[in-house]
């Protein structure tokens, strides 16, 4: 078992663990914005770790996997941003203990 293989095992294992934690977070956290916190950041990190580990297993796949990583890094924050705005527009989704709401305050200014 070479060093690369050990690193690959560790990376894929860590990625799977982070993805599992993200799924658990989506299941357990109370409201939309908390769920999104688990569902976006953790899946981005988990996918990057997992894909990098996979690339170390099969070095010939590395360019394609890096392309996938670039796409995930580009699209994941944007989609969660759009999702958060859509959820913010729904009055029913607003949590009870929301104290600071910068988006609501800035709505009048930069339209």
């Amino acid at each position, binding site marked *: 078992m070479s060093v690369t293989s050990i690193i690959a095992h560790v990376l894929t294992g860590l990625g799977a663990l982070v993805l599992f934690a993200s799924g658990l977070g989506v299941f357990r956290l109370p409201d939309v914005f908390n769920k999104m916190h688990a569902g976006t950041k953790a899946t981005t990190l988990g996918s990057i770790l997992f894909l990098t580990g996979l690339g170390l297993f099969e070095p010939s796949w590395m360019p394609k996997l890096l392309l996938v990583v670039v796409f995930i890094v*580009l699209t994941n924050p944007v989609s969660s941003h*759009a999702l958060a705005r859509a959820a913010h527009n729904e009055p029913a989704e607003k949590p009870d203990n929301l104290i600071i709401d910068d988006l609501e305050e800035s709505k009048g200014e930069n339209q």
Partner: protein
Amino acid sequence: MIRTIVGLAIVLVLAAILITVVDDYTVPSALSGVGELYTQTGVEDTGSVNLVTAVVVAYRGLDTLGEVVVLFSASTAVVLILTLIPIGANPTPPSSIVAFTAGILPGAIILFGIYIITHGHLSPGGGFPGGAVVASAFLLVMLGSNTIPDKSKFLSSIESLAGLTFGLLGFWGMFTLGQFLNNLVIPAGSPGRIISAGIIPLISLAIGAKVASELSGIFSSYRKAGGEE
């Protein structure tokens, strides 16, 4: 309540019938009939390494033409209904982050879609999935734009051009080799190369353009009738 009971009864009766049918089914050990024929002689007949594309475009090309017509009539119905009966337009302006990403990503997505379409005879893909990918890039453009795009003329001319190409390629085979949609009017070449398999890549391009323009037409008329959240 009565609706639930009747629905459940119908579904349970159907489930019982299906289970008795499945009960007689034995796992086949080999392919039979036409599937076996396609796997045996597909690569020699069509020059396409991917047998699914060979069946879609070459062996069952006439069926695919008919299915494209079904797709065409469905999308035409959607566009016609939404043009004749306006539902009220209120596209919400996108945020600047979404607008920026919608400016840079669609090029890469369209490139990927074209890759899927043109490599349909070599790797998984072909006209239908590639066209869907290209249409999703158009969807992203529409989500990121502030105004209602009016590209229906452009879309419908691409659609007509693609359909015409499909038909003309079919007639080419009919007049030279006596068979509608015969794909060997161009020599097959060596299987596994990008320029091979006769006119399969050309027909894949036509199918991809048609699927992409029809789905984009549906989205465009949706956008005219009101934003998609």
